[in-house]
């Protein structure tokens, strides 16, 4: 991978330092594959997984918390929770993302609209809350539901899911500095105000969900989910509410990365959620999956125009397996797709992006949501919670983090931590940490793997 392709000038300055740090400390070979291309990356074995966890009333302290799990196999605490930082309240903890320097982890609360900023560099073994943004709604002009916290050079761009006017799905992108200062709000295009974007189909719903950047094409892509009323309500009640079921996103938007202006609104019916872009130079395409209609969607440019194409079914769409998190392998060969309702993970061969083929399937639990892959694709971490009121009830409400090793043919479970038994809550999004990012020495036996330069 050509690092210059993905690292902006300010970060390029950091790159030698980071690379040197890696070489000088613990050489490692892994990272998530869903991070911002502007992100300073670690390579090799991650030391920690930070799990943004929803508090459960009546369980432990009942609060949302950032849970740090030791995942270095050479550590005496391997596979154990080593720290838990409660933040106060149940905020509907959901997604989190690092700043581009990877020193801070921003974690959003979809209900309280608070953004909790954790220091993960001072002591990577102990993600520590250092700042809370509690005026996101008023500062942004009414955006509710901070979802994806995504790194751009020196900036964090945050997708909203809803608004403070009707708690519906119309929403915006909100940009902050890395230090937490509000910069601007970019509303999703609506029919009355497309903001210059081309509406190529029938829909311009103004909804939002995930965001990814493709610097090589100077674009950002956003997807669309649903508003506060739906993502917060009881899942079963929602399925029986005919009006609520009309309030799902059916669009993706192509943005000009540099100007933050929307360029195209694409019809993608059925709630397109996560977006993952291919990594190899020249592979200028991305994937998304639709939650309700169970499709893998390919986003690609053709004759300077972006298009969305359904390229594969996920499971049996008529059964609504509910695709949730996806993870693309760093060699662009596999796409992991989790389906919440049947608790399965599926691997799709995407070497031909226009014709993905399912090549593997495994039951992870009664329910599964997130998957985070190491950069080399050999380690896959899974967690279970989708949304506080959407998770399965009673005995089907698994809450865990599991690590599997993947040898290209089969997955083998390495450890599992039961978040109920640990009285922590609902395990949601995972982010990786490593001492090597910060020029620190891991407090473990030195790895003997070959030194490999930092990936993008």
């Amino acid at each position, binding site marked *: 991978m050509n690092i210059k392709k993905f690292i902006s000038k300010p970060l390029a300055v950091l790159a030698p330092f980071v690379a040197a740090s890696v070489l000088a400390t613990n050489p490692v070979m892994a990272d998530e594959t869903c991070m911002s291309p502007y992100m300073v990356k670690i390579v090799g074995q991650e030391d920690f997984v930070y799990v943004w966890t929803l508090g459960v009333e009546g369980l432990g302290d009942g609060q949302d918390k950032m849970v740090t799990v030791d995942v270095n196999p050479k550590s005496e605490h391997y596979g154990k929770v080593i720290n838990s930082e409660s933040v106060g309240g149940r905020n509907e903890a959901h997604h989190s993302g690092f700043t581009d320097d990877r020193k801070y982890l921003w974690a959003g609360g979809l209900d309280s609209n608070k953004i909790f900023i954790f220091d993960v560099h001072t002591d990577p073994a102990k993600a520590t809350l250092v700042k809370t943004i509690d005026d996101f709604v008023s500062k942004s002009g*009414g955006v509710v539901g901070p979802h994806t916290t995504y790194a751009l050079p020196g900036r964090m761009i945050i997708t909203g899911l809803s608004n403070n*006017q009707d708690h519906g799905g*119309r929403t915006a992108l909100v940009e902050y500095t890395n230090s937490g200062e509000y910069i601007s709000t970019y509303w999703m295009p609506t029919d009355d105000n497309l903001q210059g974007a081309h509406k190529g189909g029938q829909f311009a*719903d103004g909804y939002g969900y995930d965001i990814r950047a493709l610097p090589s094409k100077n674009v950002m892509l956003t997807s669309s989910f649903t508003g506060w009323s739906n993502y917060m309500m*009881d899942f*079963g009640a929602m399925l*029986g509410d*005919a*009006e609520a079921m*009309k309030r799902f996103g059916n669009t993706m938007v192509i943005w000009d990365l540099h100007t933050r202006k929307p360029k195209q609104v694409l019809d993608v019916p059925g709630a397109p959620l996560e977006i993952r872009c291919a990594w190899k130079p020249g592979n200028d395409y991305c994937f998304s999956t639709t939650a309700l209609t169970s499709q893998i969607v390919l986003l690609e440019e053709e004759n300077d125009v972006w298009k969305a194409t359904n390229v594969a079914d996920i499971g049996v769409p008529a059964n609504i397996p509910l695709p949730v998190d996806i993870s693309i392998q760093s060699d662009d060969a596999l796409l992991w797709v989790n389906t919440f309702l049947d608790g399965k993970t599926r691997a799709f061969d995407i070497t031909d992006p226009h014709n993905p083929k399912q090549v593997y399937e495994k039951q992870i639990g009664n329910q599964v949501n997130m998957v985070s892959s190491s950069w080399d694709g050999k380690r896959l971490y899974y967690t279970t919670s989708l949304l506080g009121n959407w998770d399965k009830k009673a005995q089907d409400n698994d809450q865990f983090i599991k690590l599997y090793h993947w040898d290209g043919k089969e997955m083998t479970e390495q450890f599992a931590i039961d978040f109920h038994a640990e009285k922590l809550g609902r395990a949601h999004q995972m982010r990786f940490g490593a001492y090597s990012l910060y020029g620190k020495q891991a407090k473990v036996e030195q790895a003997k793997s070959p030194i490999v330069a930092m990936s993008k």
Partner: protein
Amino acid sequence: MRYSGVKISLLLSLCFYSSYGLSKDNDVREQEKPRDFYNSEHFTIQAPEAEDSSSASGNAYIIDGVRIGAGDDKAGYETTGYQTNSVAISARQGTKADLIRVIENPPLGLPKIPVPVNNPLTVEKIDLGRKLFFDRRLSLNDTFSCAMCHIPEQGFTSHELEKAVGFEGRSNRRNAPTIYNTAYLERLFHDARETTLENQIWGPLLARNEMAMTSMGQVIQKVKDMPDYAGLFEAAFDGKGPNIVTMGKALASYQRVLVSGNSAFDRWYFGKEANAISEKAIRGFNVFKGKGQCVSCHSVGQKTALFTDNMMHNTGLGFKRSMGKEPDKERMLIAPGTYAYVLKSKKALVGHPPIPDVGFYEVTQDPDDRWKYRTPSLRNVALTAPYMHDGSMLNLGDVIAFYNEGGMLKNESNFPNVTQSPLIQPLGLTEGEIDDLMTFMKTLNGDNIAEVISDAFATPVGDTTNEH
């Protein structure tokens, strides 16, 4: 809603079925065939008839520059031809109105607004009440105002949900009722458990599944601590600050002036403007007061019409919800024009059971009051979908069909619904009469809707800030 019944295929009838439990109307081989998921030949597509425009979701329109209806209009979502009709949040701009004028001059068709002796209306109280109504900080986690469920452009109810959703997404068992013309109600809430607007406010503020404040004292202290309320209570209440009484009086004052009359019907019926409504609507009114018997509960007086008798009735709907059998599967939309079915057993995996609801009985403890609910006013009824106490009817067509069939049939349970109102009987209305009746009901929109919505839009939404 009556559909044209363009049923193309039933491939999705298995949706949400486990892979081991195939239904008789599913063909496994069909599912396994490679296909374009959005190719309409694989799906059940039902197109609503063109005139069925009273979906809760919309057909928003503009009056005096003000959009009436959800900013996220979903009219036609049931069809593959659906096109969005969305407006930017920033378009939600308005102008403060002189709401208090209705005290001296109630709109045509409505009586003088009842005002408690101990809470005379003033501009200051109305302004304060409006500010409180839109303040999301009046909830335990600063995310919920009254207006999050009573959304101005959505008829001061919510078009987006059948049943309201409260604090932390907790379920409610009933539809958010409109705030329009609550000044005239003798009983409040669907189950009539409250008597005055002044007292009513504490229900939602303290309900665990609404705004979830933990005590009256907590609410009052929170308001006292907000700098932007400094002096406002004192100015409105002769030097008295926020307390249990002044909070109630302020919020009641705003809600009390949200009256809406002088509708096309009022101008025709009371104002004697011959051309104010169409011949079709006049025929509909005749059905309303004649064969349809609607007027038995939705009263029309000699000089004014509240379109409610303020009484409690068991229509059979609540009985069915409590005593009837749930279907094994329910049809649901998963994308525009695309349906699937959800199995009851699958739904139970991800949802809590419905909250029991026995209606007025819960207030009186009298078995004769089981499943009785307050008659809602029909004023602005075209703006306040979805309908019934549980929001289960999405449009006026569904409601009329329900009554035309005599409410819920008494044989839907093993024993009879003994408290069902004798007024609920099969009506035998023809399609033409139903059409006329619906046209009449759409003449009941007040003439000040745009003004009231604009006034609401001019009110800042209270959210947490760090600017003080």
